[in-house]
């Protein structure tokens, strides 16, 4: 049996009672359990197994100990992923050992386990330090689990607007209370004034009715004002919190959530929280107050009749619950059918070429008709279903109100109750129902609020994984970079970098080459401390990167990414990103150096041209050159260029490369390139493959070595020769391209 989803599949430092008996039995005296991970598969069947990390061993247990590996023998832990299943495996001195299999549902838990193991065996983190870190993490995680905890936290977040929230609730309750007065005045009007013909009371009662109405109007205006203000205040408070958090997040988080995910959390979830807060939180108080006030009024008027009033409530609550449960299915089906229609239409439009060229129109028409029919049926089913529930509920209410009139009428006829009281009673009766149902809604919305708020806290509670020490300092970089045994993974399964060590001297120009996916870009980003390695150390001028103030670092390093994104601003502003107080001359000079000036001056508004969202009004090559200009204007100590010339035509590429040669002199530079000719001026070339550095040296040295670099080089030459470079003469090409790296 698969375990329920809420159960925690990874327990850190579990207490003895949390340990299953078979695990306890396997432990030695004094052995401490660091982590207990629970699998949901045993072999290819659902079932529960355990992987236990102790301070000395890793154990796999299902029924009995099936694997046992001393930590001292483990060199690395990893997870292999398949369609549905994953396998936890340990690299040991004696070769790899597969420990346990689990479904992807447990991946997150096992990923954490792998990180812990790797921190111990690869990172060589002292055990006590690791324990302290894990215990701290546990504390903060526990606090964000329960719905109540989330709501309490949300209120904490909204503390600055607490007075506003309180005022809104107070005014809303006041409106309802004032709303209770008119029926009472009507009772007085009927019983005391009209029935007893007391004309002298009439002005007072009418006056009181007028006053109540005026008060009501005033309160309603105040309520509307406060509500509007509250809505805006809530979303603004939340959104700016999340927005500020965005800047703290490292790129790893951006990768994990995807830009769309972060986007929806800032825009949609804050709105959702606001909506639920105003739909659930404020009304909760209002409805509760109403139930108490109106209920008390009813009971004091007539306790027996009040019982009749309560009668339809169980019926309707049951009806409501049934409705909720079943309606969601009907509505979900309706929504599915609708999206079928949308998808047929969108296929037809987006894949028009395909549909037309394959003559699939009749098929699409049939599909469309079919989905229309299904939608119609689903719609009618919703109607039929609703017709089954609501009339019954309505009938219960009608019955109870008729009963109130029946018994109440009898009382009035017997003279035991005044007509005014009965009239007021029936008015209050209807006032009683709506807050009762409101409360049911509120409770449900409160749960949804907790879910939406939970999603927000997922972001707000993220610990920035690129952190600086509290005692970090500003330093002037000389430009030496050193990384040592660096391991890095984006998803917890695949390590993009596997134990990379690299030393770059100040002012050295390094070319980074290797097949796609070999980890070049990851390494480049890591060298700029945009990511923190999970394992290993990164140092600038011999100082650990965490000891350097982020701000001071960012000032002195620059990166130009492949497919760079620009800000929605003018070209001049985008270039000036590199230097706040840049003069127009510097901006032009930077653009000239990046070979961007010519195309910019051809635009009617030249440097004042707005580039559009993400630079969409410029071509890829133009964007690349603007980004390069910004990096050059910054005059950084360390410059990282990720395929700076990839989007350029061969001629421009050649010009930019010439310019780069000049501009990178005396500057620590790391250039990633597929086209090896771009690297002709580098001092050293580092070849990466599959997350590892496999070769290092100058162009000539590497060619002699007969390794990956030589193969890459020959493949590029072959491509050129085949393309008809034959006309120029094969030798000519060779001479041209081989000569260049000798600049270095």
């Amino acid at each position, binding site marked *: 049996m698969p375990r329920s989803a809420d159960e925690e599949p990874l327990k850190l430092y579990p207490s003895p009672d949390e340990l299953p008996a078979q695990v306890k039995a396997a432990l030695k005296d004094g052995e401490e359990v660091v982590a207990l991970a629970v699998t949901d598969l045993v072999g290819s069947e659902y079932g529960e197994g355990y992987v236990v990390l102790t301070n000395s061993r890793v154990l796999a247990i299902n029924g009995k100990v099936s694997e046992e590996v001393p930590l001292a023998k483990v060199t690395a832990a990893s997870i292999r992923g398949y369609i549905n299943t994953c396998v936890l495996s340990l690299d040991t001195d004696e070769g790899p050992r597969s420990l346990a299999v689990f479904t992807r549902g447990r991946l997150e838990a096992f990923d954490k386990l792998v990180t812990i193991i790797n921190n111990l065996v690869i990172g060589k983190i002292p055990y006590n330090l690791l324990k302290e870190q894990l215990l701290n993490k546990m504390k903060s995680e526990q606090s964000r689990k329960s719905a109540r905890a989330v709501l309490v936290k949300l209120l904490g977040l909204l503390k600055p607007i607490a007075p506003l929230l309180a005022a809104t609730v107070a005014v809303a309750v006041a409106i309802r209370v004032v709303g209770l007065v008119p029926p009472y005045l009507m009772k007085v009007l009927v019983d005391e004034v009209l029935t007893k013909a007391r004309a002298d009371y009439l002005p007072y009662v009418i006056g009181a009715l007028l006053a109540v109405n005026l008060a009501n109007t005033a309160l309603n205006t105040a309520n509307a004002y406060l509500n509007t203000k509250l809505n805006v205040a809530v979303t603004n408070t939340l959104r700016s919190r999340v927005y500020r958090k965005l800047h703290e997040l490292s790129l790893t988080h951006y990768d994990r959530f995807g830009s769309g995910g972060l986007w929806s959390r800032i825009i949609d979830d804050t709105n959702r929280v606001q909506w639920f807060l105003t739909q659930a939180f404020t009304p909760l108080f209002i409805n509760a107050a109403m139930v108490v006030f109106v209920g008390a009024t009813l009971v004091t008027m007539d306790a027996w009749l009040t019982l009749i009033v309560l009668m339809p409530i169980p019926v309707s609550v049951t009806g409501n619950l049934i409705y909720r449960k079943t309606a969601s299915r009907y509505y979900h089906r309706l929504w599915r059918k609708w999206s079928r229609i949308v998808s047929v239409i969108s296929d037809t439009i987006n894949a028009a070429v395909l549909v037309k060229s394959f003559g699939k129109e009749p098929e699409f028409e049939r599909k469309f008709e079919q989905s229309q029919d299904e939608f119609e049926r689903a719609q009618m089913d919703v109607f039929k279903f609703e017709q089954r529930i609501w009339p019954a509920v309505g009938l219960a209410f009608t019955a109870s109100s008729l009963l109130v009139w029946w018994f109440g009428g009898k009382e009035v006829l017997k003279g035991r109750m005044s007509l005014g009281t009965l009239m007021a009673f029936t008015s209050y009766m209807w006032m009683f129902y709506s807050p009762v149902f409101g409360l049911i809604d509120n409770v449900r919305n409160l749960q949804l609020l907790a879910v939406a708020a939970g999603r927000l806290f997922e972001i707000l509670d993220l610990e920035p994984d690129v952190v600086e020490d509290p005692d970090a300092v500003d330093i002037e970089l000389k430009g030496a970079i050193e990384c040592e045994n660096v391991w890095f993974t984006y998803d917890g399964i695949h390590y993009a970098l596997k134990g990379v060590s690299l030393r770059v001297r100040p002012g050295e120009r390094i070319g980074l080459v290797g097949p796609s996916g070999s980890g070049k870009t990851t390494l480049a980003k890591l060298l700029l401390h945009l990511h923190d390695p999970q394992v290993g150390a990164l140092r600038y001028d011999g100082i650990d990167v965490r000891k350097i103030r982020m701000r001071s670092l960012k000032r002195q390093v620059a990166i130009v990414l492949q497919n760079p994104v620009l800000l929605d601003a003018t070209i001049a502003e985008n270039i000036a990103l590199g230097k706040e107080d840049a003069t127009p001359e510097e901006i032009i*000079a930077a653009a000239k150096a990046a070979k961007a000036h010519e195309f910019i001056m051809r635009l*009617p508004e030249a440097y004042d041209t707005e580039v559009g969202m993400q630079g969409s009004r410029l071509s890829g090559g133009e964007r690349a050159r603007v980004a390069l200009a910004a990096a050059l*204007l910054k005059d950084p100590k360390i410059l990282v260029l990720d395929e700076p010339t990839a989007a350029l035509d061969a001629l421009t590429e050649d010009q930019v490369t010439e310019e780069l040669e000049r*501009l990178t002199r005396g500057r620590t530079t790391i250039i990633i390139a597929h086209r090896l000719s771009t690297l002709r001026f580098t001092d050293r070339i580092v070849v990466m493959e599959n997350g590892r550095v496999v070769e290092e040296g100058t162009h000539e040295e590497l060619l002699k070595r007969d390794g990956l670099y030589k193969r890459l080089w020959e493949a590029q030459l072959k491509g050129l020769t085949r393309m008809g470079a034959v006309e120029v003469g094969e030798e000519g090409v060779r001479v041209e391209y081989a000569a260049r790296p000798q600049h270095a």
Partner: protein
Amino acid sequence: MPLDLSTLKILDPSRVKVLEAKLDELTLEVDGAVYSGVRPRRPFPFSHPEIVIFYRGDEEVGMLRDYRKLDPRSRELLEKVLKVIYFMPKVRKVLSIRSVEGKYEWRVVTDKGEVSFYSWGRCVRVLHDGRLVIRDIYGRAYIVEEPEKLDGRSRLYLSMMI
């Protein structure tokens, strides 16, 4: 190696003379050498209109950091050409903005007279100094120099579009 400002070819205004001006072309004398068919361009038409780069074909003759430092006659000739190249009506008053079939129809009074044009929804750009540039569906620009000094009605209309 830091940026090389010498690539800019900055000209000394006292050694530049505009001899002749016709539509978008100038005859220029720089250090005694005469260049004809020279076209001035502003690299920063909005943010630094005083900077001008002279082109002859694709070739850069040089750049003036502030063309207003030219002698009065040269400055007058150059401005005559700049007015042609950077023709841009200044909006003095917005008479009406109506939404018509997904476009907006503007009626405005400019320094060049009353004009009406169509724009798309996102058509007003706010410059750093607070000036507004309105762009119509053909890409023509109209500038509002001091939006806060327009009459209330015009400001209300404009605020709808920003």
